Each structure stands twice: as C-alpha cells, then as structure tokens.
C-alpha cells in the first residue's frame, strides 16, 4: 500500500451548496443534513472531489476578501504561443490557420518527442554524389523530420522536404509516400491532360473491377470541392429534373431551396439567389467522381494482410491516433490510417497565457507577463500570502508510560486502529496583522468508520508576520511573559465552553497520563508568526463485520484514509478599505467604526492524516 504523507486541502467557498440556492435532500451527495449551519463538510462526498484544492492552487481576491479557486475565476487569454519555438501567434492567425504552430515545430507521432529537421544525406559514396549532384553544399538535399528519442524519421512514411524551413506548409502539400497533394487548379489541369486520363484508367483497371472501374480515388479535400461545385451547378441549372411536387419541395431533401438554405447557413448567404427560391423541383445526386461521388472501398484485405505481417505492435494506439490531426490530403473514411507506419508528424498545439479575474468584482487576480519568454507575473494574488498555511506532522510523545505514543511518528506509517494518535498542526500567518484562528472539527468524522477527533486547542492567536529583525529587537522576555498570561486565561475560559474537546473519556484519561505534554486549550509551541497545536485522533477499527454500513462488506477505495474535516475561521483587524464585506463584518461584530476594520474569513479544509492499518 502506498504511503500517505499528510496533506491539507482547502474547500473553496464557491462550492458551498448553501449558496447554490435550494438545499438538497437529506440523502443528497452533498452530505447536508438538517440545519445548513450545523452541517459538517464531508470530504468523502462525491462532490468534494471538485471543491478541494491544495493551498498552492488557490488565489485570493483582495477586494472581495475571498478565496478563489480554479473553478470560480474567469479567464482571459493574454497570448497564444507555440510551446516549442516560443513564438507568439496573433489571434487573427488562429482564426485563419488553426490552433497549431505553422512554422516548423512538430512532435513525433510515435513518442510525442520533439522532431528536428535534419538533412537526409545521400549515401556517403563520393562517386554517386558526384554523378548525381556535384554542386550540393554539405548540408543540402532533401530534409526529414527525425526524433532523437525513438529514432523515428519522416522518411518512414515517405515524406521528405526540399527546404529546411516552413515545414508546415510543405507537409500540408505532401501525402504519405511523398506524392504531392494537388491544388484544385492543378487537379483541373491534370484532368484535362489526356496522358493522365489514360494512366488513371490503367491503374484503376488493374486494381480489380470492384464497382464502376473508372472511379478516381478522391481525398477529402477533392471530394468536398467536387461535391460543392456539383451542387452549385445543380442550383444554377434551370433544367434540373422537375418532379412537379411543388407543395413538398420546400421540405424535401433533394429540393434546391432547402439545399441552398443549408448552404447559405454555412457559407454566409452567398448562395441565396432569388432564382433558386422561385424554382421548384428535385435535384439529382452526384453520379461520378468528378461530381464528388466516392464509392466506399470496403475491401480491407490489404489492411488485414498488413495486420498479419506487422501484428498488434504495428497498429497505432488510440492515443497516437487521437494526436493525429485531420489531413485534407487523406483518403476518405475507408482506408484511414490504423498502422504505425502511416502516422504523420504532429504540429505542436499552441498554448495560451491566461489572466484570471475575480468573477464578482472583475478585478484581475492573476496576470502573466505578455512576453512569451518570461515566466513572471505582473499580478498574482496567491492565497498563500493571505490565509494561514497548515502543516501536519505526526507527534510521538516521549513518555514511555503513555499509551498514546504510537507508531505514527514516522511520516507515512500506518495508523493503529483504536489507538490514540497525536498530530501537530502548525499554522503559519502570512499577513502583517495578528490573526485569531478558531477551529471546529466534528467529534466524529463522517463516514462508515468514524474516527474520534479532539482538537486540543481550537482557539488561538498567531502573531503578525513581522520583519524577522523587528522580532529580534523586541524585548523577548517581556513578550513571553505576556503570552503565558494570555494562554492561561484562554485555557481557563475554554474548559468551560468545551466545544470540540468534550465528552471524550478516553481523551481525559490520556491527558492524565501525559499531563505535562498535553493540556486542553494549551498551545503546543509558538514562534514569530506560527503556532502549533495538537490534535488527537482515535482511528476506528476497519472491521467490516460489526459495521452497520450500507455498502456491504467490502472496504471501498480510500476508505482507510483518515481525513478530518475542519472548519477554520480567521479573524483579524486591518487598515480600512470600506467595502461591503468589511462593512458586513463590522455589523456582526457590534459596529465599532474605527479606522481599523475587522475582517473575517472562514472556510472548510480537510486534513489527510494517514492510512489506518487494516485488521
């Protein structure tokens, strides 16, 4: 079983179902039950997967004083660029050329490694070189794309280039095997050429007489062009077959009106001619390849033969096929590449730099430098510099008599069932004001195997993140005495209220055992801008027999992970900003309208402590 290092995930308040309107039923996956305020966040609920983030993933809006997660920011694209050549691509080019790099950046179709343009040197036979081309420079001649990792080369699919630059444009004109893709104009000219006609007839004749033998193999682009011109001719032709079913013509498939309507949708109204509207009648369909008819080639014996020789290893994987981009020079649907030997180089997909805005106040909370080469940000309000970070460490108590000393002192070790285990939570305050932290955790974690949880000190203050030197210059002795007084006072007050560390007999016994270390309401350790407190957990036994679980006798995935939902409320006073949230906070706290404003931030987080040993 994989070891589990303790983790903290924070729930972005945007996913709070209470803000989503209607509250769901008691059996809903949100885990809401009864009063919304008393609801405990269940980290195992299916929805929780979508709202929990590590602190590093979160941003913070300074104006709304709220956490913002990747789900609740609105993004804007700053620039598009190619990750390979780092050239910026203007958005107008994206619209015309697509979202791939159109320079010479390609990925290997086999292993997705970057491809390099290398010259395919002819055989290093000096006699041959002199005979064919003696004016050639040392690095001339045809070029190929090669992968330096898996040694794939575009010559394997018969593709070579004349020039080492603008490979993208050259590749677009090349079919696998090196034959050039003709432009529409060239195709027309070729068709006029009588020598080509006879040649084409000969080749199709030799292939065998499946279907009408004179049919030419069309690639996607040619077929589309042929079909388009055919239908346009049909629309313009007043003598197209007239069936006389005038009443149905507007609805019929073959009616020119419906066709022209559809075509005008796609082509932007250029075909909307009045003539077509006035005319009724059906059109005939394409009958030959010049008109765009392509008869499906269902003869797959070649592919089957290839499969027999190459085996499964010769076929392209789904991922490899998905990486292939549509190639207009390709054969139609039947006979599409399925073998490794037919894969073409993949032009690099462009990437984008995005800026992020707060969805509420529209302020920018993250904005990267527009220049591609820099990885810096102009604005980046990360949550880590506004809300306290939380580190978890297993705590092993040194006293030998204590039953609470457990094996969890080694990070990642399994937690013993029914054995009290202690964890040290260290909160670190990133802001320049003293913050007051209040923690709330359910006494029993939700789920089929509830763990008993006791937060020994659920309320404490953390000093401001002041300059390190300020701290050093202060009279530390004075400060320490002050702290101690404060601590005692809080502890006294706390044992009466006992919100979370209540009604846990075991815990009390345990505290008696290890009296000098663990005291309810006492901070474990304190530093310049951090405070460590202790949480005690009693992991459950994962025996399935005595559980009254609903899911049967099988331990579900990760059900052995001990996760504690914890509600964190952070309060602090800061220089006034005068916005709504601050006003709201003031109102609730009694409305003292001073220059310093009370602020409050509250959120759920999940502490993943470790895996429980299966019994």
């Amino acid at each position: 079983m994989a070891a589990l290092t303790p983790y903290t995930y924070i729930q972005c308040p945007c996913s709070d179902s209470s803000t989503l309107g209607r509250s769901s039923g008691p059996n809903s996956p949100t885990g809401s039950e009864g009063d919304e305020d008393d609801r405990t966040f269940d980290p195992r609920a299916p929805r929780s997967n979508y709202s929990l983030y590590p602190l590093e993933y979160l941003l913070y809006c300074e104006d709304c004083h709220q956490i913002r997660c990747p789900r609740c920011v609105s993004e804007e694209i700053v620039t598009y660029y190619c990750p390979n050549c780092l050239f910026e691509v203007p958005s107008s080019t994206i619209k015309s050329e697509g979202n791939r790099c159109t320079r010479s950046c390609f990925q290997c179709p086999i292993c997705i490694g970057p491809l390099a343009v290398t010259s395919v040197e002819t055989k290093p036979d000096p006699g041959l070189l002199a005979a064919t081309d003696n004016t050639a420079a040392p690095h001339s001649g045809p070029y190929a794309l090669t992968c330096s990792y898996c040694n794939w080369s575009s010559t394997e699919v018969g593709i070579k280039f004349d020039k080492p630059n603008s490979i993208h444009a050259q590749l677009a004109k090349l079919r696998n095997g090196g034959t050039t893709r003709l432009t529409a104009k060239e195709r027309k000219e070729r068709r006029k050429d009588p020598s080509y006609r006879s040649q084409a007839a000969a080749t199709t004749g030799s292939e065998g007489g499946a279907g009408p033998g004179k049919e030419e193999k069309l690639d996607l682009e040619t077929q589309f062009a042929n079909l388009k011109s055919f239908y346009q001719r049909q629309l313009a032709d007043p003598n197209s077959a007239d069936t006389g079913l005038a009443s149905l013509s507007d609805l019929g498939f073959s009616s020119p009106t419906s066709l022209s309507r559809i075509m005008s949708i796609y082509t932007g109204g250029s075909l909307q001619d009045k003539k077509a509207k006035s005319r009724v009648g059906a059109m005939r369909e394409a009958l030959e390849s010049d008109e765009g008819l392509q008869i499906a080639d269902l003869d797959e014996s070649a592919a089957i033969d290839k499969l027999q020789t190459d085996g499964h290893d010769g076929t392209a994987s789904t991922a490899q096929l998905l990486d292939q981009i549509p190639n207009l020079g390709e054969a139609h649907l039947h006979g599409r590449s399925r073998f490794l030997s037919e894969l073409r180089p993949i032009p690099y997909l462009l990437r984008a730099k995005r800026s992020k805005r707060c969805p509420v106040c529209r302020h920018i909370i993250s904005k990267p430098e527009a220049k591609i080469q820099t990885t810096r940000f102009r604005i980046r309000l990360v949550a880590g510099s506004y809300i306290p970070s939380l580190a978890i460490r297993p705590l092993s108590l040194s006293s030998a008599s204590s039953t609470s000393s457990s094996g969890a002192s080694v990070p990642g070790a399994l937690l013993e069932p029914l054995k009290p285990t202690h964890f040290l939570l260290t909160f670190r305050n990133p802001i320049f004001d003293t913050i007051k932290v209040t923690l709330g955790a359910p006494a029993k974690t939700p789920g089929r195997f509830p763990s008993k949880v006791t937060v020994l000190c659920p309320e404490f203050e953390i000093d401001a993140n002041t300059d390190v030197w300020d701290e050093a210059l202060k009279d530390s002795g004075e400060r320490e005495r002050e702290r101690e007084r404060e601590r005692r006072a809080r502890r006294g007050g706390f044992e009466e209220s006992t919100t979370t560390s209540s009604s846990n007999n075991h815990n009390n016994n345990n505290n008696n055992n290890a009296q000098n270390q663990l005291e309810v309401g006492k901070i474990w350790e304190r530093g310049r801008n951090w405070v460590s407190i202790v949480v005690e957990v009693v992991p459950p036994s994962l025996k399935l027999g005595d559980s009254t679980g609903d899911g049967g006798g099988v331990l579900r995935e990760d059900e052995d992970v001990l996760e504690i939902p914890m509600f964190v409320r952070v309060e602090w006073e800061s220089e006034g900003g005068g916005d709504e949230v601050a006003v709201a906070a003031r109102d609730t706290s009694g409305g003292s309208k001073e220059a310093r404003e009370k602020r409050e931030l509250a959120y759920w987080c999940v502490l993943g402590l470790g895996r429980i040993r299966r019994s």
Partner: protein
Amino acid sequence: MSSKRHSILPPVSQSGPKPPVHFSSSITIADSALLIGTNLIVIHSESVIHPRAKLDSLAGRITVGRRCIVHERATLGAVGTSGKITEAAVTLGDYVTVEVGASIEAGETVIGEGTVVGVGARVGAGAVVGKHCTLTPHTEIAAGEVVPDFTVVYSNGMRRTDKRGVAELKNKGQARQIDVLRRMIPSNPAKFA
C-alpha cells in the same frame, strides 16, 4: 588543451587484484578509470574509456571493440544475480557507446556493433543486443534477452525498428567524437599495464 579539469571527488580506490590487460596502442583511457578483476581486459584500437568507468573482469573476460566510448561511471561486467563465471563476461562490438551510469552485467553478454546503451540503462547477464540498436536512457534489458538488430528500446520497454539507415553516418560521427575526446581526456594506459 592545456587546462585539465580537476575532480573534486576523492581518488578512486584501486582495490582488489590488478587484472591482466591487452590494450591497443591507439586507445584513450583515463587515469581514473577503474579496472578490476582477475581475467583479461581487451580494448581494441581507438576506443575511449572515460574517467571513473568501471571494467570488472572478475566474472570473465571483458572485450571492448574498436572505436567504442565507455562513459563516466558506466560499468562493464557488473556481477549480476547469477554470479557465475564465464569465459567472456562482456563483449562490446565496434562503435559501441556505453553512456553515463549504464551497467552491463557479466555473463556472456554481447553488445552489437554501433549500439548505444543509454544513460543509466541496464543490460542483464547473458543478454545479446544486436547491431545498431538504441537503448534509450534507463532502459532495462532482462538477463538472457535477445534484442534484434536496429531495435530502438524506448519508453519503458516499447520497441520499434530504426529505419533511418544512418548506421554509416553514426559510425562516422563516432569517429569524429573520438578525435575530440582524445584531446580532452589525458590518457594513461601505462597505469593499467
């Protein structure tokens, strides 16, 4: 090239017996290469043995072909799991490159001509790697496995055939690289004689 790089690492401890060697006069072998074992170590003409490469003939004879490059911390003849002694522990063909940290186990292991054993790759005892193969970094070839000529082993054991047909070019490149290395690495074959 008057400036010589000085290593900050402690000197290599020449422990164990000094093996009998048979060197061609044209080889380049660094002073800090590590040759140990009891059997013969043969290095053919123009091959380069980098500093801290380890040739261990304890489990049999080590043969390095012509114009081979054995990089730093590469190990030829590592005693594998079998531990048995054979006549020929490791045989490298001509133009073989054994990259940094790669390990070729002893036990009639053969690396064919022009093959590149990538960084950190491991070739098991008794494996026979064909000619002009490429073992990409951290590839593992199991003991006794036979890898056909022109095979590229990549991405955790995937295999394909190198169809570039650049074997000649690669050999020429290797010769050029050896020319450079010869000037960079001070050779001291006398130390091992």
